[in-house]
Each structure stands twice: as structure tokens, then as C-alpha cells.
């Protein structure tokens, strides 16, 4: 605390960040939580319609998070540790599931694996009950493993190979090394991954809406209450349940993460290669990644096919007419690009600064702000949007451009991922490096800018990329905020879908995904020219 009072700029920065957080995360959500009023809450909870969705949510969360994290870990391990061929390809595929604009991707799964699915029925002769928990589990695993993969990969990439070499040297076999050195070292990333994945699975709306059928989870219940019955009070109550669950998850993860330090960037030379991975493992990894990639490619392949045929799957005639819609709605694509790029950059900057203040400094209320930083992940998008719509629809705010408001909502909606990535990155930088800067006369902010910020390039870019993708594919957040001039791509897709214009919707989705891939490629290219940092850590 004294540090803050002694460095007024630092204190001021913190105040500004916290004020922004209060204004744009806490305040809109309070609006939502307050809607039902005590009576409304009592009535809703007494009704008891929320019990089954709650149980379902927890069930789906447990299942999907486990498999998504395992898959993400395997994928990360394969990418970082093994020698398998085709890594750039797998890296791209690993990111693809993040690009799931609403409706269309989930629909592809049904096309492939449904009761008359192309794979399940035409190929395998099976009629699968894909609409329900089973289908949801599969879809969520694939949809969310990229989050886990990125967070874990970041930590694994920075781990010190010398530890593993030391263990091998002492006689540990590859499995033992993995179990006793690699795995524990990956703990900060793992804890982060589990937390973020669990929260995202919990608040996932798009997938359950299309795949879960009768298996209602909390977000779909909330949506149904609003969209099907106009019961805003009930929906707000459900949103509150989700918030409470997120709080519990957060507290649980604090214990999981522990207090150990896993510093690997310490300003010392370490240029050892990693111990070799057994061939069996390499080929096993390759097989898993290949299968996973195959499934993912099929899903997106179906998407592309839908866009290029008249009425997939009944009419396979080739056509480009659907892409006309892209041209007609180019403004919304443009808006998407502008809003989401700016939002992603600002989100990334905000998050890394906040992570620095929370991880490197001590001040009262730190833990609360830490929770607030991931709270947006726990709020169903629809409520984030409603919160904004309610909070900022006041006469005195009429001058605020809607585009700006949408941008702001995107920034704070995506803080959780960028923030956690920054935290994990920071945890790996030895404090003696900050202290060296301090002892040479650098104030906290200056030291952050000169020393920590450059060393955090990769986690930041990871966070930025993910934030961008999430911003681009969110529908529920913006649905209450957009105006005709500030329409974004997901709204357009929604409109096309409601028009039963599947050709147009898929074509537009393909266009959107193409745009997102282009932006991500730029980021990847920038990261590809690896910073000096990785060389010196023997990566």
C-alpha cells in the first residue's frame, strides 16, 4: 500500500483502472441484479424451475471442462514438447474453434453427426441422438479446448528445460519427468485454464441453444425466459445464479493455484534443449492432433459447402449467389473489424496493466478487483448486453455514440481471457528483474513499460487474439446495443438465419471467419518473429 502512496502516478493509474472497471463491469451488472427485487427473487426461487438447469449446468461444466482441459493440455504438450511434423498447421487448426459465430458452426455439427448426419448416418449408418447432453459435451469440448490450449501452451513454452534435464539426469524416465516436473511446473497455466474454461462453459449459450435440445442449462433458460416469454425478472435471477457460481469457481481456483512461484524468466542464460520425447509419445500426439484437426476441418468444411451450394444438403448445385449477401452487408463486416480490433487492443493493454498492478503490487481490495476482472466471463452475454443497455440508456448519455458503447462492451467483456494470460505471463518473470530496474531509478510504471511490457509480448498477443475472436463472434452482448448504423456481423448472421436464408448466413459466416483469420495471421506473423526473450530462455 505504501508503494502506492509514494508513487502517486501508480496510485492514479490504479484508481483509473478500477474506476473504469466499476463503471463498465460492476455498475451495469448491478443494474441487472437489482431488476428482480427481493420479492422477485423469492418468487423465482420458490418456483423451483431453476433447479434442473442448475444441475444440468454443473454437469455439463464438469464434463466439458475436464475433456477440454485434457485435450488442450495434450495439444499444448504436442505443440511445445514433441517433435511432431506440421506444427504451424496444427497451431492454426487449434485456434479455429474459437471462430464460432453463432448458430452456424453448431448447426454444422448436427449436419455431420445428427440423426441423418453425413458422417453418422451416411457413412456409419448410425442415427445418433446428438441433441442433448452427449452432443453438447462433444461440441463444447471442441469449442473450448483452444482456450485451455493457449493458456497452457504459454506456460509450457516458458518452462525451464534445465529442470527436466536435471530430472532425467537423476534417473527419471520420461513419464516420471512429465509427472513430477513438467506437470507441476505447468500448474499456473493449468489452474488458469481450468478456471477460464469452466466459466466459459458455464456461461456458454450458443452451443446449448442449438445442440442441447431439452437439456436446459442456465444460460439457455435465461435466454428462453427473455426471448420466449418476456420474463425479464426470471432471467435476471438466473443471471445472478450464474454470477454466484462463478464466484465459487474463482475461490476454488485460488486454492488450486497455490502460492508457489514458477519463475522461469530470470535474466540468466539458459540455452539447453529439452530432453527428447519418446517416439511413441510424438506419434501419439500427432495422431490425436490429427484426429482433432480432422473433425474441426470437417465442421468448417461443411460450413463452406453450405455457402457454396444452393441448399445443402439436399441440393448440391454449386453457386456463388449467397456471397452476394456479403457484399450487401459489407458495412457490418467493416464495423465488426473496426470495433473488434480497437476493442481487442485496448482490452489487451488494460488487462496487462491491471495484471501488473495486481500481481506485482500490494494494496487493499486486490482480491476483489482480481475477481471483478474475471467476472464478465461468468455473466451470460445476454446480460452483459442488457446491463449495458440499461445502464447507459439515460438521457444525459444520449450523446454517446452506439459504436463506442459497443466497443466498450467488447473491451470489458473480454478482459477475463486477456487478463489471465497476462497474469500467467507475469508469474513467470522473476521479480529481481523489476527490482533491478527499480534500483536503477525506474518508478513502477516506468519499469513496467520498459521491462515487463516487452517481456509480456506473447501473452499479450495471445490475449489480444482471443479477445478479438470473442468480440467478433459474440451476438448476445451486442444484440441490445446495436443500431442500424452500428450493426455488426453477428447481428447480420442472426438476421439472415431468421430469414431462413441459410445460404446467406453461411456465406456471411465464411466471410467473417476469413476476416478473423486474416487478422489473426497478422498477429501470428508478428509473434512468429520471436522476441529475443525466447532465445535467452532456451526455447
Amino acid at each position, binding site marked *: 500500500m*505504501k*508503494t502506492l502512496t*509514494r*508513487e502517486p502516478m501508480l496510485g492514479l493509474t490504479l484508481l483509473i483502472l478500477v474506476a473504469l472497471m466499476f463503471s463498465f463491469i460492476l455498475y451495469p451488472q448491478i443494474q441487472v441484479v437489482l431488476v428482480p427485487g427481493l420479492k422477485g427473487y423469492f418468487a423465482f426461487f420458490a418456483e423451483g424451475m431453476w433447479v434442473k438447469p442448475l444441475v444440468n449446468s454443473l454437469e455439463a461444466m464438469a464434463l466439458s471442462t475436464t475433456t477440454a482441459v485434457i485435450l488442450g493440455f495434450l495439444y499444448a504438450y504436442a505443440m511445445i514438447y514433441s517433435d511432431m511434423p506440421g506444427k504451424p498447421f496444427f497451431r492454426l487448426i487449434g485456434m479455429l474453434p474459437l471462430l464460432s459465430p453463432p448458430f452456424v458452426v453448431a448447426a454444422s455439427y448436427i449436419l455431420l453427426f445428427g440423426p441423418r448426419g453425413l458422417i453418422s448416418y451416411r457413412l456409419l449408418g448410425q442415427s445418433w441422438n446428438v441433441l442433448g447432453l452427449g452432443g453438447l459435451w462433444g461440441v463444447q469440448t471442441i469449442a473450448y479446448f483452444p482456450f485451455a490450449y493457449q493458456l497452457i501452451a504459454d506456460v509450457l513454452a516458458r518452462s525451464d528445460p534445465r529442470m527436466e534435464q536435471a530430472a532425467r539426469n537423476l534417473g527419471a524416465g520420461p513419464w516420471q519427468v512429465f509427472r513430477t516436473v513438467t506437470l507441476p511446473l505447468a500448474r499456473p497455466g493449468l489452474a488458469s485454464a481450468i478456471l477460464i474454461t469452466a466459466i466459459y462453459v458455464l456461461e456458454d449459450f450458443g452451443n446449448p441453444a442449438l445442440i442441447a435440445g431439452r437439456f436446459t442449462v442456465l444460460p439457455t433458460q435465461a435466454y428462453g425466459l427473455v426471448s420466449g416469454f418476456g420474463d425479464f425478472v426470471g432471467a435476471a435471477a438466473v443471471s445472478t445464479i450464474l454470477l454466484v457460481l462463478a464466484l465459487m469457481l474463482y475461490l476454488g481456483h485460488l486454492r488450486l493455484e497455490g502460492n508457489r512461484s514458477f519463475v522461469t*524468466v*530470470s*535474466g*540468466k*542464460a*539458459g*540455452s539447453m534443449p529439452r530432453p527428447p520425447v519418446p517416439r511413441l509419445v510424438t506419434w501419439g500426439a500427432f495422431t490425436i492432433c490429427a484426429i482433432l484437426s480432422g473433425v474441426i476441418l470437417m465442421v468448417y468444411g461443411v460450413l463452406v459447402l453450405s455457402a457454396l451450394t444452393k441448399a445443402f444438403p439436399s441440393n448440391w448445385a454449386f453457386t456463388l449467389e449467397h456471397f452476394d449477401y456479403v457484399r450487401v452487408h459489407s458495412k457490418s463486416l467493416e464495423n465488426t473489424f473496426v470495433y473488434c480490433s480497437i476493442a481487442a487492443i485496448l482490452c489487451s493493454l488494460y488487462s496487462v496493466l491491471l495484471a501488473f498492478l495486481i500481481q506485482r503490487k500490494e494494496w487493499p481490495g486486490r482480491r476483489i478487483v482480481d475477481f471483478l476482472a474475471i467476472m464478465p466471463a461468468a455473466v451470460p452475454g445476454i446480460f452483459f448486453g442488457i446491463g449495458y443497455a440499461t445502464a447507459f440508456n439515460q438521457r444525459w448519455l444520449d450523446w454517446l455514440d452506439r459504436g463506442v458503447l459497443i466497443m466498450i462492451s467488447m473491451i470489458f467483456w473480454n478482459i477475463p481471457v486477456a487478463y489471465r494470460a497476462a497474469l500467467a505471463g507475469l508469474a513467470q518473470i*522473476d521479480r*529481481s*528483474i523489476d*527490482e*533491478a*530496474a*527499480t*534500483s*536503477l*531509478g*525506474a*518508478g*513502477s510504471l*516506468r*519499469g513496467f513499460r*520498459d*521491462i515487463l511490457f*516487452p*517481456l509480456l509480448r506473447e501473452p499479450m498477443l495471445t490475449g489480444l487474439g482471443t479477445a478479438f475472436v470473442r468480440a467478433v463472434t459474440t451476438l448476445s452482448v451486442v444484440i441490445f446495443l446495436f443500431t442500424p448504423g452500428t450493426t455488426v456481423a453477428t447481428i447480420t448472421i442472426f438476421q439472415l438465419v431468421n430469414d431462413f436464408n441459410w445460404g446467406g448466413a453461411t456465406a456471411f459466416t465464411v466471410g467473417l471467419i476469413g476476416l478473423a483469420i486474416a487478422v489473426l495471421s497478422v498477429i501470428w506473423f508478428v509473434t512468429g518473429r520471436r*522476441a*529475443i*526473450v525466447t*532465445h*535467452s*530462455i532456451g526455447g
Partner: protein
Amino acid sequence: MSDKLTGGKLEATGLPEAINLQPAHLRLEHLVKRFGPTMAVDDVTLDIPKGSFATLLGPSGCGKTTLLRTIAGFYEPNDGAIYLEDRRIDHLPAHRRGTAMVFQDYALFPHMSVFDNIAYGLRLAKVQGAQLDRRVHETVEFVGLQGLEKRWPSQLSGGQQQRVALARALVVQPRVLLLDEPLSNLDANLRERMRWELRSLQQRLNITFVYVTHDQSEALAMSDWIAVIKDGRVMQWGDPWEIYYHPRTTFMAEFVGAANLEPVKIVDCHPPKATVVWHDYRLELPAPEGGAADEALLCIRPEAITISAEPGDQARYISLPGTVTRKAFLGHIMRYWVQMGKAEWIVDESDPGANLRTFDGAVYLLCDPHRVHLIAMPAPAPGAPAA
């Protein structure tokens, strides 16, 4: 490229203008630092002489590094004050205290070249352009890293990295330079050489160094002034000679150097003198700390004993019979462990090559009564020793 600090070159050219430092007087008053229930720094009061090479010496976990970091400003003291040149600095943020630090693991900025690492502090001070270049280059030469300016930390050896860390701290002209066991990661040979070079560097620059180490021979070799820390408290402070030859407690005696200790009865105690009876000899010695007592510990250093096959001149030595249990050849000395009654004493024989024999079996230990001194039993409260 020489791996040495270019001491010789320095004498020829004199102090570079770039490094123009004023020694500062550092004073700690009743400093306390707690971590939860643990007292890491327990009421430490020290007056570090201006322009000295001051060492904080102690075993691992004694709090010496905590103390150093508190001086640097990385820890908030729970109580007490720190003064630099009579100006109170514990209220200042760490980056404004004028205390630069050299870290044990060097903490070089991995994303900056050697030049930029060294230049960093200057840039913070808004030194630019030609002046910046000049100062950095001079310091680079001063520590013997010419030609390496463009390298990255990962491309340097341990010794070179250490010099960069040193140069980086020196170039900003700190009032006090803090060093946290900077040599502990070097190999033995390099370590020895670096000791001399650091020492001569400090002397030439004439600035106050506060040096932390657990290696007592290093402390003795390099320091003007040593404070021995144990469990967060100062056991004793003084110059190396004082510390070595007048340890005030058993811990001091055994931690700094080796010591042979034997309880003796005090028959007559009139401070500053006390009379003891030791092996049928009556000795009049300076009284131990803490005033009158019945017994004390008699302390004699291994090198102060002569090992011999026969009893020595009775007028000069107290001869004690014993049996050699083992011996070790350490190059410049032969160390004998000699059993005398219940106790096992250590005796160092210097220049063993001069004697054409080694000792075995029954021997006599010849002790010079002027080379023994008394330590109080139990140890008195920490404080300044009697002058």
C-alpha cells in the same frame, strides 16, 4: 578479451571522469522487519562507515538479505529508520533512494543488449546522446567488457554477466552500492579473482559498498568492516581483525574461522582482568563480556597452536598431550584433529612442506598463553563490544 577487471589499466589512466562518486554514510536505527510471525530483522542498529567495504555476514536464513533489501526499499520496515547522509530514506520509494543493487542472479534485462542494459539507468536520469555514449563506454572499459556491447545477456558467460550487472549499477553513480552475494554463482577460481577486483574497485572509487555473503573467508578478505547477523540480530560488528580475534560468543568463534573451546573456571574476576586456572596453569587474561562470572570458555584458534612430538619450552608454552585422530592436507596447511580427553581439537600447521614429517599418534599441543582469550558463558546481549 581479458576476463579481468583491468586494474592495471586503471592505474595508468586514473579514475575515469564518468565515475565520480561520493562516499555516503549509511545508518540503520532499530530496524525491524516481520513476515507474519517471523522476525526476519530484529531491532538492528548499525552505523556503516563512510566509504567502507561493509559486509553483512551470516549463515543462510539469518536475515542479511532481508536487511539489504530493506535498505534498498524492496521491503517496508515495520519499525525503525534508515538514514543516508543524515537524510531519512525509508520513507522514499525504492527508485529514489540512490542505492543501486547488484543481484545474486544478475537480473539482466533479457530483451536488451549489454549496452542498453548498462545505459538503462542513465536513460532514466535523462542522460542522452553523446554524454550517454561516453559514460557507458567508459564504464564498459572499466569493467573490461569492451567489444561486447552489442551482445545479448544470453550470449555471455557467468563472469561477463556479473560484470554487466556491476557496470549497470555503477554507471548511475549510486550513493551506496548494494551487492547481494554477487559472486556465489561463479566458479572458485573466478570467484577468488573477482574478490580482489571488486575490492580494488571499491577502494579506487571510494564509495560505500554494502555486501552480503555467507562466506566468512570472503568477508574477511574483502571487507573494511563486518557485521555478523544471526536470526535477524547483529551478533557483533567491527573490522575483520576484531571479528576474527575477538569473537564475543561461541557462535562468532565457530562461524568465523574455526575455534577450539574449553570451559575453564574463573578463580578471580576483576574486570578488565580475570584469572583462570587451565590445565594446572594460572593465566591472567582480559575478562570476558558481561561482568563477573565463575566460568568462561577459553578460546584458541587452530593456527595459534603448534603441534609437536615433544612438550615445548615450559616458559613459553602450555603443553597439552593428545592423540592425532585424523589429518587433512589442504595445500597451504596440514589440519590435524587431536583428541584430548573428551574434546577434539583442531590444529593447523602452516607450510607443512617445511617439516619433513607428519604427526601421528601421541603429540603435544603447544599453546601460547597470549593467543588465548575468554568468551563469556552464556553469551551476553548483542551490542557494541568493549572498545
